[in-house]
């Protein structure tokens, strides 16, 4: 089980959380003007990196707030959590 640190509540069991998938996907500003392929890309296409990933998580059985988490998809190592709207922290394998 992962021990995830909610930015508000601190370390909690993974079972208290809901994972919302890849973070920082911006909704297109004018959906009706969008070609189908671009809309499909927004709705369905996600990165699937083998390595560090920024994900959205929600503390479902706690404060019920969404936040972002930097997690390694192979080792499950968690590099940190940050609030929605906060500046993007560099991934651990990126040069800051």
């Amino acid at each position, binding site marked *: 089980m992962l021990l995830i640190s909610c930015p*508000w*509540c601190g*370390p*909690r*069991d993974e079972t*208290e959380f809901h994972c919302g998938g890849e973070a920082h996907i911006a909704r297109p500003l004018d959906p009706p003007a969008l070609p189908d392929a671009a809309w499909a890309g927004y709705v369905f296409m996600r990165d699937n990196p083998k390595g560090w990933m920024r994900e959205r998580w929600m503390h479902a*059985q706690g*404060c*019920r707030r969404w936040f972002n988490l930097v997690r390694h998809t192979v080792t499950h190592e968690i590099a940190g959590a940050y609030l929605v709207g906060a500046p993007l922290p560099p991934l651990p394998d990126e040069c800051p």
Partner: protein
Amino acid sequence: MADRGTTILDPLAAAIAAASCEEARLSRLPLVGQVTLRAGRDAVSLAGVALDLALPTEPNRVASDGGRAAVWLGPDEWLILLPRGDVASTVARLEMALDGGHFAAVDTSAARLGLALSGPAARQVLAKGCGLDLHPRAFAPGDCAQTALARVPVLLVQRDEAPTFWVFVRPSYAVFLARWLIDAIAELRLAPIPGLDT
């Protein structure tokens, strides 16, 4: 006489009373009025003045004054526990104080039932079904947490160093959780086995 009302836990009253022992005492909390307040940070001080009770801004903390408590549920969400008779007037006071702002003050008194668990083994009992670190260095009187106990979402509040915990649970889960707690306490009532228990 505490207001016990009629709740889904009534049929378990005798079992709950019989479960308690020296190490861990389980009881039903009297029915308490509950007001859920959603409001932005700019409204915290206004609401505090209207309530005459400062809302905690530090996560997972409780502010109390005698018969009332303000429980942190989220960065813009609080639960105010107060006598049932004061709910309507409190909601009205909040609505007047925060008028024009973006907020909600709602009577949610029927949303949760309270159980109290206290005694030297209370932490041990909760630890059977709760992943939270309840050690005194991590969880102290005045702390609260929304978490899972026996897989049931609960609101846990530590009241004193006995320790006494309040466990608030959705009424539909209350019977299950009360039965689970009765079962979790049961082993504490066993007589020690000479030679095995020291």
